[in-house]
């Protein structure tokens, strides 16, 4: 079964088909939500709510598109609503955005994670989508629902912010 089939079956009233979509994308979605919200606990709540939103509005989904970029828009709405209700805390004891990797110094990863956490959530979001997911400018525009030109400028200013945060940590 692929996404399109799962959505077709789900629209016919078979909600178990939705399980396929949840299980296929939940890990990716939580990782994306962590990058916006900065912690895994809130991210899990946001992803759960976003999947429920997706289920309720599946009828409006344009089946010529891919599921995940559409779902991502719902997810980021949930994340931004959630972060508006909560105060942001910048205290990290363990990295939650970047994966530990053998052979790479943990100090470097930790300093980079700290710089990311110190960014605004909007900057952190575009930076992680670009660098960690390798999205193209067109894909960024689709995920963030902004024109391509705005992607260029937002990415540029986010990079500058990141550079400023990294100054003193690496440079």
């Amino acid at each position, binding site marked *: 079964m692929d996404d399109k089939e799962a959505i077709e079956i789900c629209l016919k009233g078979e909600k178990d088909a939705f399980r396929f979509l949840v299980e296929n994308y939940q*890990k990716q979605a939580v990782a994306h939500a962590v990058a916006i919200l900065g912690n895994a606990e809130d991210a899990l709540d946001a992803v759960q709510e976003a*999947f429920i939103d997706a289920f309720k509005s599946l009828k409006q989904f344009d089946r010529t598109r891919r599921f995940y970029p559409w779902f991502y828009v719902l997810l980021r709405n949930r994340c931004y609503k959630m972060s508006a209700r909560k105060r942001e805390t910048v205290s990290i004891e363990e990295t939650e955005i970047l994966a530990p990797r053998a052979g790479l110094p943990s100090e470097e990863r930790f300093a*980079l994670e700290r710089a990311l956490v110190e960014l605004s959530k909007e900057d952190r979001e575009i930076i992680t989508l*670009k660098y960690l997911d390798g999205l193209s400018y067109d894909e960024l525009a689709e995920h963030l629902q902004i024109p391509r030109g705005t992607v260029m400028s937002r990415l540029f200013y986010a990079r500058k912010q990141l550079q400023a945060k990294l100054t003193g940590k690496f440079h």
Partner: protein
Amino acid sequence: MNEINCENVLMAKMAEIDGEEAGFSSEQVTLHIAACENCRREIEQMRLSDNLFKNQTRRGQPADLWSAIENQIGNKTVYQISWKPFVLLVVILVAYKLLEMLPERDFGLAFKLVPLVFIVALFVFLKENPFKINAELTQGEI
């Protein structure tokens, strides 16, 4: 991006490094950078920041959300609004209005409540609570 200034050139150069269409010709960008020390320094700094991400990946997050989601969606099916109940309601309300216009007829208080009963029935049919919708909007705004 029409004007050649440091900001636009830096954006174009970063787009070029990312393998994207830059908006300026490569020659225009190269010419500006060759003459601008500030841009050269900025590009070098951004390249250094870029390199830090080269071997980094997202941390995988454990997640098993299906049972919680299944509980929340319960027995609901994907929300599909059919136009038929609305047409039926309009037909009933028009018929009601015509009956009401008949001269020298008084159908009593029960008859006057008929539109209200149909509107409540429509909300029950749609499984929606109009007061709950308002409450959710208010919470969202807070």
